[in-house]
């Protein structure tokens, strides 16, 4: 491993850690009632971005670690969100070449579909391990995800450029 790639690896680590930290804070910020159910799933957006940009390095394992942190914050049963995010990262890794060439509008649609798969999987698993029922409001956050994706994408691109990650 040349020193150049190792330095890039370190800066990737810090960029992923910083963006996940901000996403965790945004996830639990207190909100007015009208925004509550439409608030995006920030962690999912961050994971999609990094899994898309550096598929060889941010994969299921990193997504699982971030998901476990979110489970600690939410005080939920362990394992479900970790598995959900790992699946999300795995799908994005596998299809990153197709997703990268899409225009921003097409990307928005695909982000909505990917997070819908993630929410379906985790909602279903929570139904098994604890008392949980999927309500109509459960799906409202998809609207927020799709609408916020272009802005999140631009901000994370900026972060990546500053950190000189290729």
């Amino acid at each position: 491993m040349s020193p150049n790639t190792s330095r890039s690896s370190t800066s990737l680590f810090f960029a992923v850690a910083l963006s996940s930290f901000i996403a965790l804070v945004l996830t639990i910020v207190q909100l007015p009632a009208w925004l509550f159910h439409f608030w995006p799933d920030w962690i999912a957006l961050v994971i999609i971005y990094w899994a898309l940009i550096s598929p060889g390095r941010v994969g299921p394992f990193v997504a699982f670690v971030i998901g476990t942190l979110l489970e600690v914050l939410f005080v939920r049963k362990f394992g479900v969100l970790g598995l959900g995010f790992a699946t999300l990262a795995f799908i994005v890794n596998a299809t990153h070449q197709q997703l990268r060439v899409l225009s921003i509008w097409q990307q928005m649609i695909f982000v909505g579909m990917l997070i819908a798969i993630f929410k379906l999987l985790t909602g279903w698993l929570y139904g098994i391990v604890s008392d949980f029922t999927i309500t109509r409001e459960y799906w409202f956050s998809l609207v927020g995800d799709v609408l916020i994706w272009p802005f999140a994408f631009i901000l994370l691109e900026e972060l990546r450029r500053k950190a000189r990650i290729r």
Partner: protein
Amino acid sequence: MANPFRKNSGWSQFGLVFVISIIMMVVDSKTAWLNAPRNVMSVALTPIQYLASIPSSIGRLFTSSLTAEPDVQIAYDNLRNEYFKLKSETLLLRTLEEENQDLRALLDASERLKEKITLAELMDVNLDRDNHRISVGRGLRDRVYEGQAVIDDQGVIGQVTEVMPLSSIVVLITDPGHALPVQIERNGLRTIVYGTGSVGRLRVPFLNQNSDIKVGDVLISSGLGGRFPNGYPVAIIDDVKVIQDEKFIRVTAKPIAKLDRSNHVLLLSREKPKTRQAIIDSPESN
């Protein structure tokens, strides 16, 4: 050192994570082994909660510093009036309590348990929109224990399900997985109230066609099951639907407590059995 950012084949990594997650799910839902690591990590993640609470505390600071003086005066007068009213009611309560104790002694009934009340503040974080739970700022440090009943100034809110060092998680009575034994205040009919998953609605199944229940009846906690002390208001019946040919009638109720609006809650804890014994013993020794 293993570097998680190394290049790796996706399938093997995903397979490993899949197995780990399934093991964690099974272990966490069957045992309590993962609670200790969770507690340690929750303390480490406190900065995130602190950062997330900054916007709402700034908002509160603004509203409190911008409140006009006449408003404060009105609020103060209202509070003072209420204080005197409650104070006078307490005077009466003491004599009633004594009378009740004497009557119970005459009937040879066991003494009503006394509850200790701890005030707790809600944490300024949006815990979880998919479950009906709130996070309160009292934890192991304040001797909160699992299963403790939580009320506000109007009625029952829920019970403690998860205790961490600095905070604890309260599941609300509207959570779809929550059930609470109650009785109707008017006639003492006992039943169980279930959450529905929407705030402001509870369901009361298992009442048959000839049950004496009508719109406007108040449900109070019955004390069965041993978690909630009896006599605290829970809900008001707001709809009774009798459908012919169905074994049970369909009853829905509205919670009395301000589930989504209160900033402070009260944790009820049972007094230690030892002190209770001392109270029972003391009249005999006199």
